């Protein structure tokens, strides 16, 4: 042993006088800038889709209702609660978060002797790290879940602008499965869909390539899937969780994909509707549109003998007589409807209730009546010159096209209106002009500015691709007529459509005018209903705003117990509300007749 070794233990004493390296109470130490610490959640951005709970490999996340956060369209009202007894800070929940609201702070220190303190709802419960700037966030430019939609094939404008062939080509199996794979199965869409369709379940069926299961799920809530798969207003897609950081799921096209895959002769076998036992009761339905057909379908399944009275010569209502064939091919309408009729539903065409047969008679002859007569009357602007015989209603013209009746298509046409029906007539007339004159000269104008147009954006884009001119933001003032012929439409710049009280009361800039030359004008500013068939029983019904019949919200039963009313004359107007109404009315009728 050397001398140094002997002294060594004593030299250590000198450290007593040196400032210690150890920090006494290390509260101030922060984690690294991308450290994965306690969760933060922007609760106003979060929609409670529960994808974080789904991906968590340690089952550390529960979805909990939070006071003050409302359950509404697009937001479940739930927020994630984390159990830090299980969390391993892997941050998969952050990476998959559909709204990017969930992140991790770089704080990691927190003491408590109560284990339940380590279960809390980030962003709701007050924590010292809630305002931390640093921590782990999802890196830009990568996503666990693809945010871009699988493109849908379409005919090029040159291929479609003079034909009524369906322009959307539909997904292939590979495309459909790839698109279905983007769904996180949160089910937020289901609440918003008027028919509350089992959307995540049928998307799952697409993913698993089980079309029979897919079809069964569709028919639980919607007996017109070929129709809805093409022209539904797809409110579900607006609230889709994936819509927050990318394109929403193509829910509508996936529905169409399922229906397209199953041949109609397989339907009865798959849906188990080969034999239905009758219950001996009879229901009359007025109108063979989506609402009437939907009610007929569900009533037929319950064993009712159903007869539909239809004014026109074919079934489908506005779907057939309002929507152009390039969007909604007739053979696909027939596929849906033929199946419903094959369940024993009878239709009497060319029969107008109120004229050919009275509503009260139906009330006597049948156990119940469901009326869904729709909005088939065009509305006029009522401006000077609008009574000219070359001023048409869009709805009449569209009906004529379906009925293959001759339309005297002019060389220069102006359409008034900015909704989807206005786009339908614009694009229909463009095709007819192209066929007749080899060129398009149709201009569409409306009160609303480009951004506020009620039509779907793609409809406007496609109309322009087909060489129609869309010039929004103008108010029609007067139709110029010279020697009995239409010369055109005078418009003034529209400054505002509604007044301060929110009433329709457009204001114009009278110094900013335009004149649109035309020899034919089409008005497409909305549709009205004709319920004159209720005239004789009016006293027994109740009417609400704009003459609508008041019905029970759940059963669609009117004040007259045997009369149920639904479809566009009650809610909407759109196909999916009609289908939902028809289904609810069928259940309502069943309940009513069971109790009777």
């Amino acid at each position, binding site marked *: 042993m050397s001398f140094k070794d002997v002294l060594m233990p004593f030299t250590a004493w000198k450290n007593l006088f040196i400032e210690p390296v150890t920090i006494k109470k290390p509260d101030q130490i922060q984690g690294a800038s991308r450290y994965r610490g306690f969760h933060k959640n922007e609760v106003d951005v979060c929609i*409670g*889709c*529960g994808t974080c*709970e789904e991906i*968590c*490999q*340690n*089952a550390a*996340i*529960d*979805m*909990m*209702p939070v006071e003050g956060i409302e*359950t*509404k369209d697009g937001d*479940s*009202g*739930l927020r994630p609660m984390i*159990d830090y*007894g*299980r969390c391993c800070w892997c941050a998969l929940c952050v990476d998959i978060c559909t709204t990017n609201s969930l992140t991790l702070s770089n704080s990691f220190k927190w003491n408590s002797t109560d*284990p*339940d303190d380590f*279960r809390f709802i980030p962003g709701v419960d007050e924590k010292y790290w809630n305002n931390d700037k640093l921590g782990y966030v999802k890196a830009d430019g990568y996503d666990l879940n693809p945010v871009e939609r699988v493109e849908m094939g379409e005919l090029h404008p040159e291929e479609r602008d003079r034909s009524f062939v369906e322009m959307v080509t539909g997904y292939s199996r590979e495309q459909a499965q790839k698109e279905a794979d983007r769904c996180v199965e*949160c*089910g*937020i869409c*289901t*609440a918003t869909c008027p*028919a*509350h*369709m089992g959307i*995540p379940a049928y998307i799952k069926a697409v993913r698993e390539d089980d079309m029979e299961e897919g079809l069964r799920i569709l028919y639980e*809530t919607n007996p017109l899937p070929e129709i809805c798969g093409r022209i539904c207003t797809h409110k579900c897609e607006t609230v889709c969780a994936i819509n927050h950081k990318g394109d929403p799921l193509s829910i509508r096209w996936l529905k169409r994909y399922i229906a397209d895959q199953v041949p109609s002769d397989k339907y009865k076998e798959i849906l188990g509707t080969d034999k239905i036992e009758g219950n001996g009761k009879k229901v009359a339905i007025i109108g063979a549109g989506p609402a009437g057909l939907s009610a007929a379908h569900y009533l037929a399944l319950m064993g009712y003998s159903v007869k539909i009275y239809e004014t026109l010569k074919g079934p489908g209502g506005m779907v057939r007589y309002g929507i152009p064939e390039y969007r909604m091919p007739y053979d696909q309408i027939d596929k849906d409807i033929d199946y419903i009729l094959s369940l024993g539903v009878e239709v009497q065409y060319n029969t107008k209730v109120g004229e050919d047969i009275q509503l009260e008679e139906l009330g006597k002859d049948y156990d119940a009546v469901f009326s869904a007569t729709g909005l088939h009357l065009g509305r006029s602007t009522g401006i000077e010159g609008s009574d000219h015989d070359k001023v048409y209603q869009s709805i009449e013209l569209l009906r004529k096209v379906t009925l293959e009746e001759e339309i005297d298509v002019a060389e220069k046409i102006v359409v008034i209106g900015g909704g989807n029906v206005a786009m339908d007539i614009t694009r229909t007339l463009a095709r007819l002009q192209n066929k007749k004159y080899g060129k398009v000269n149709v201009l569409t104008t409306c009160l609303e500015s480009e951004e506020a147009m009620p039509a779907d954006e793609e409809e406007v884009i496609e109309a322009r691709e087909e060489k129609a001119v869309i010039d929004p933001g103008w108010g029609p003032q007067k139709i110029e007529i010279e020697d009995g012929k239409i010369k055109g439409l005078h418009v003034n710049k529209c400054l505002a459509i509604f007044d301060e009280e929110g009433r329709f009361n457009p204001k114009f800039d009278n110094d900013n005018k335009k004149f649109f030359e035309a020899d034919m004008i089409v008005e497409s500013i909305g549709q009205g209903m004709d319920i004159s068939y209720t005239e004789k029983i009016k006293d027994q019904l109740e009417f609400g705003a704009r003459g609508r019949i008041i019905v029970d919200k*759940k059963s669609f039963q009117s004040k007259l117990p045997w009369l149920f009313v639904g479809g566009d004359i009650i809610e909407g107007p759109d196909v999916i509300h009609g289908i*939902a109404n028809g*289904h609810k009315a069928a259940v309502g009728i069943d309940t009513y007749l069971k109790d009777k």
Partner: protein
Amino acid sequence: MKELIERLGTKFPVNETVFQRDNLTFITTDKIHAIELITHLRDYEGFSHLVIITAVDWIEEGLFQLTYLLNNPKLKVDMGVRVMIDRKEATMTSSHHLWAAVATYQRELYEMFGIFFPGSPRIKEPFILEGWDGPPPYRRDFDTKKYAEDTYFPRPGRETHDPAEHMKEKMYPEGS
């Protein structure tokens, strides 16, 4: 580095080369020649330091990829030697005689991926998973969530809500 790879190529099978950065190169070699090649790199090419041994589960291809990351302290360059081995017969020649740390890496690989290194010291002793009775957890067919649910009990009082069901209850309780 290119010269080195060429030199190696004359002695050993070098199947694939990735020049990741100036100071990092990956080569892929055969299972039978791998340890011999690593020994050569250590003894004749100055790669005296073992940085790490790690694995990747290529479940779709039925392979495990082993990567031996070596460092040449003089040249300040790294070389990763990759070896693909069969996933079903997950066995690799041990290299614990080259560096003392190898045995520990191999113990970890056995525990996490189930890759066996015959003759490696204490190979079957638990590394960090004392009392583990499940399959090797880094294998991609290991269902972490199922294991967690089966093995650990939920904290008493925990409950959760399905978003779609909750919305139905709140927004349309009468059903569709």
